[in-house]
């Protein structure tokens, strides 16, 4: 059979067994802190935890697949900040026209870490939270449009299959896909988009009709699955949520808050290491996962 194309990875790991709600709170809090914090030390500690979580959920390979695409952004970040920002701090490498100085390099590392952390947080959400659970939780929070998100997830394999079949059809009509430059190849892909778009529009009309015929939109719905949160789940959520005010308070006090472009160097202090460790500690309960 054709290989399955579906973002969610149906695996039996402690992370997958954990209720979706603590996982979603984890991702949210983790994401917010990774945007806030700029200190490379803190960000590195968070990355170690994030990768441990991914490993615990046995979705490392899939996550690396996502990270592959960030390499280009990271490369661009480095290039851009080294060329276009003024020299700050000691010179690391003198290439004549361009002097690579410490400030922009540290800044690029910090930005790249943030980016990678956001992607990993997104990976935890995509690969370990069942889309049906996501729909259920978000629709209860009042996000009506989330129905669409769940259906998009459901349709993902269909659209992927459509896209492959359309490529075949176009090749059979003489479109060369793997010939010539990158631009030419990209151009050749254009005829795939039109039928794909038209198919998707027809499908979404059909789905809307089918949903209406099954009573969607009649009024108040009941909820079939609504598993009670365990005490452990609640404690986890509290811990993840507390990480936010703690992180913000520390940030205001200067921990994790570094402006490398202003020439601040990379320093590791005992106090800084302690604060970073405490911040990580708030998130570690996720490694416990859910019940057998």
């Amino acid at each position, binding site marked *: 059979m054709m290989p399955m194309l579906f973002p969610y990875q149906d695996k039996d790991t402690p992370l997958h067994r954990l209720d979706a709600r603590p996982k979603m709170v984890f991702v949210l809090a983790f994401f917010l802190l990774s945007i806030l914090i700029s200190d490379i030390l803190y960000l590195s500690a968070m990355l170690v935890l994030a990768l441990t979580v991914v490993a615990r959920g046995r979705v490392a390979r899939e996550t690396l697949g996502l990270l592959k695409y960030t390499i280009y952004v990271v490369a661009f970040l480095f290039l851009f900040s080294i060329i276009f920002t003024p020299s700050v701090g000691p010179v690391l490498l003198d290439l004549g026209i361009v002097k690579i100085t410490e400030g922009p390099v540290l800044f690029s590392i910090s930005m790249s870490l943030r980016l990678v952390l956001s992607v990993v947080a997104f990976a935890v959400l995509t690969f370990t939270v069942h889309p049906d659970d996501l729909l259920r939780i978000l629709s209860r929070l009042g996000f009506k449009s989330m129905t669409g998100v769940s259906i998009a997830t*459901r349709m993902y394999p269909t659209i992927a299959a459509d896209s492959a079949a359309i490529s*075949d059809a176009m090749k059979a009509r003489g*479109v060369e896909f793997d010939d010539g430059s990158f631009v030419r190849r990209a151009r050749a892909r254009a005829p795939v988009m039109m039928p794909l778009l038209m198919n998707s529009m027809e499908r979404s009309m*059909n*789905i809307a009709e089918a949903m*209406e015929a099954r009573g969607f939109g009649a009024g108040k719905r009941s909820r079939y699955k609504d598993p009670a949160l365990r005490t452990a789940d609640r404690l986890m959520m509290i811990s993840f949520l507390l990480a936010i005010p703690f992180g913000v308070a520390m940030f205001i006090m200067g921990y994790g808050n570094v402006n490398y472009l202003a020439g601040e160097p990379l320093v590791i202090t005992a106090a800084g290491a302690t604060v970073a460790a405490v911040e990580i500690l708030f998130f570690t309960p996720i490694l416990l996962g859910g019940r057998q």
Partner: protein
Amino acid sequence: MICMERFSFTYSGKDAPVLDDVSLEVRENEFLLIVGASGSGKSTLIRSFNGLIPHFYGGEVGGRVTVDGLDTRRTPPAKMASIVGMVFQDPENQLVMTNVENEMAFGLENLALPREEIQGRITEYSEYFGLDPFLERFIPQLSGGEKQKVALASVLAMRPRYIVLDEPTSQLDDESASMYLDFLHRLNSDQGIGIILVEHRLERCLSYADRVLFMESGRVIADGTPDEVMPLMRKNRLVADFHRGVQGNGLGDVVLSARGLTFAYERDAVLRGLNLNVRDREVVAIIGHNGSGKSTLLKQLNGLLRPAEGTVAVLGRNISEATTASLARDIGYLGQNPNNYLFEDTLEMELQFTLRNLKVPEAEWAERIDWTLRMLDLERYRRSFPRDLSCGERERAALASILVGRPRILLLDEPTRGLDHWNKARLASILATLREQGMTTVMVTHDYRFVAEHATRVLSLDGGALTEVPLTKVMELVKVCGTEA
């Protein structure tokens, strides 16, 4: 009782009504079959029974429809859902959730039933449908037949009094379709649920139906028992007698050959040292159960997939170095879904797209386009938007976009899927004409009757290799599926 009184409907923006002054009654436990050519108004008629017409599709309404006393115009379709359930053509486009249990719960949640009730109904109906081992399964991983069963179970769990089905088996192969229709019959006789069915696999349905409506141009022109309506169906070629085809090995040159093909998806071996020789002007049919790798084999023959080992030769030339696009002048390929071929504003532009890709000199275009449209009887649609055409016409339009390149060999993947008898007969006569003009055809199909009537040679793909299937064996398969009429 569904009561339709002088009902008419015109889609907004259209001049002619799709339903024209229709009056009829449907009793609660009837098995009603609705037949007619495409465009006769069958789909619109059944959508009027649950209020999708006029609520979902805007338009001009005349007369009225009441279902168990409720006027569909005043009752929104979502409310109607607990009385009239509906199953649609494509299983892909009616399943909302990602697993079976949640899918079954979806409609019940919409009815705002309490959790215990939902649980009870899921258990009851999944057992009835034999879906209990599937509850946790991922819907995208189910087969078409399983998906369609889930769609039916999900609708039935809402305990409607009638179920309306719009060509529910058109995307299924003969075996799954027969099973599905048997199941509908059981539902009707065991549970007394009214079945209102639009279907093109008429042979099987006719033995189950209490009553048949024959539609033409938005009107019901015959209403009676299957026997009473039969002469009209025959006259309109909706059913036809079985004609045994002529088989035999081709004597011409080998135009397409495969040697020792081996292929696997990840670790699952699909083809194991497969050999194939197709001679000039043969019509070779490849049959085999679901997942046996028939489509995979077809894609090897024009380079859409490449074998791990072995070679394919087209017109004596090894194709391992040639792209599919460069082979398109010699070997045409029509995949399962004709929609994937259609995107231009007019059919003519669609054909021009292919000619441009194949670098055919513009001086030849007009002649080639005329020839193709005439061959496929599509001249009157030259300036139509191909996606506005009916299912059978779309199939021919997609075929046109391939034939305009004048290939010598044609590969067809399930060419009769979703077609009624009338459209199948047209396809068969097109293939026959093409053959007279020198075309060699290889098709992959589940349609045993089509194979028995029109293929010159039948091969079965099993265990990664091909074996010849004698006509007597094909005839047995036709009988099992009950499609011989």
